[in-house]
């Protein structure tokens, strides 16, 4: 299918930032070589292509590296313009980017706080996360996806919440995804995970829970 040059993706199976780039590549039908990284023993290639963050994902297109998953998705959308991910209209694009910023700025921090705190701090973190989910629930009122009838940029960027937030709930023993309190958000998570391109590109649930259990234990012990 659509290739347009050699595409490689350096990733790690449990990482939500990596998956969202894969979702974008799959939506466009772009063939790519996937390279699994052991983050405790990073390859020289990864360190060469991303010397600044030394992180996955890294996208390589015709030998040139692109870093930061949101930057990658916008790049993919610009180079391969069939099956558009961002809307064409500049104003609609601002809405897509606004929610992407919200995901990376607010949502990730909020979930992180619940993961790595205990006691009263954790209770406060849970309340804060609920407020965040409430905002997303409000935005989804009357909509199937953030992108409207079909998934778009905001859905891909926020999509980690559909899979990795339930994982976090299991790992850190809390509950925020209440379908009575947040009915639109709950439907969105179901609908999103049913989209074929997403459904076929998720890590195994049990292994992911185990991975984040270990990760959480290590961080709390430190």
């Amino acid at each position, binding site marked *: 299918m659509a290739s347009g040059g050699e595409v490689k993706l350096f990733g790690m199976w449990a990482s939500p930032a990596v998956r969202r780039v894969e979702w974008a590549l799959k939506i466009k039908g772009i063939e790519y070589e996937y390279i699994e990284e052991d983050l405790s023993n990073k390859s020289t290639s990864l360190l060469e292509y991303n010397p*600044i963050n030394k992180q996955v994902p890294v996208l390589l297109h015709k030998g040139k590296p*692109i870093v*930061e998953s949101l*930057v990658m998705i916008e*790049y993919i959308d610009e180079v391969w313009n069939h099956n558009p991910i961002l809307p064409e209209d500049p*104003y609609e694009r*601002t809405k897509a*980017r*606004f929610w992407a910023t919200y995901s990376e700025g607010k949502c990730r921090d909020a979930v992180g706080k619940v993961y790595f705190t205990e006691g009263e701090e954790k209770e406060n973190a849970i309340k804060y996360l609920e407020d965040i989910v409430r905002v997303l629930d409000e935005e989804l009122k009357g909509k199937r996806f953030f992108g409207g009838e079909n998934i778009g940029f905001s859905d891909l960027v926020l999509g980690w919440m559909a899979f990795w937030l339930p994982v976090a709930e299991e790992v850190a023993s809390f509950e925020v995804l209440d379908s009575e309190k947040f009915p639109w958000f709950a439907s969105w998570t179901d609908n999103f995970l049913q989209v074929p391109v997403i459904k076929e590109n998720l890590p195994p649930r049990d292994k992911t829970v185990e991975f984040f259990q270990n990760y959480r234990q290590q961080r709390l012990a430190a």
Partner: protein
Amino acid sequence: MGEEGVKLYGNILSPFVLRVEWALQLKGIKYEYVNEDLSNKSPQLLQYNPVHKMVPVLVHNGRPIAESAVIVEYIDEAWSDFYPLLPSNPYQKATTRFWAKFVEEKCLHGSFDVLSRVGEEQLQAVKEMQESLKTLEGHLEENKFFGGETIGFVDIIAGWMPSWLGMIEEIIGIKIINEEDLPLISAWIKDFLDHNLVKETMPPQEKVMAHMRAIRENVLSAMSA
């Protein structure tokens, strides 16, 4: 007001509002500036940005946009025939966006750490800030600005640094930017502050300074509470 109604809700203390003003003025876009009292926000602001309730908000033909970097990209796309702020080549655009994120995540958050910590932790924050600036310096290469000969997207996103870092240095009594260690960044700061647009839009420094001192005081008193 311009031929297409453009309104900017802002406040002189906000460096994020300045980003939008620079973008609008570089593009030659006429706009109406609405000053917000952040201790008494207008119903319009709360209606236009219900999620964050913050400035800047740009309203174009009655439609609001929030988040300064998102607004600047919108300005570049909606008025694309004059003074491009981002490169048109997708790879160069991706590089530009990467550096803008780097400035936001490492430098902006880093500067807040410097302002809000004390003792050893503060010195550590200063060191990390200097490392981030050293990395950022690599992107300047031989150019006067990150955008090349003229101000571009990364300059706009990083444009708070020249005046704010100077003020932080004065408040905490520690030098962050040494010319020998960060020669290119130092040169960029001089060139940026010397740019007519920056000079014309510079807010009254005493007010910003007082505001930043207040931020530090609040953080320190919260720590000892």
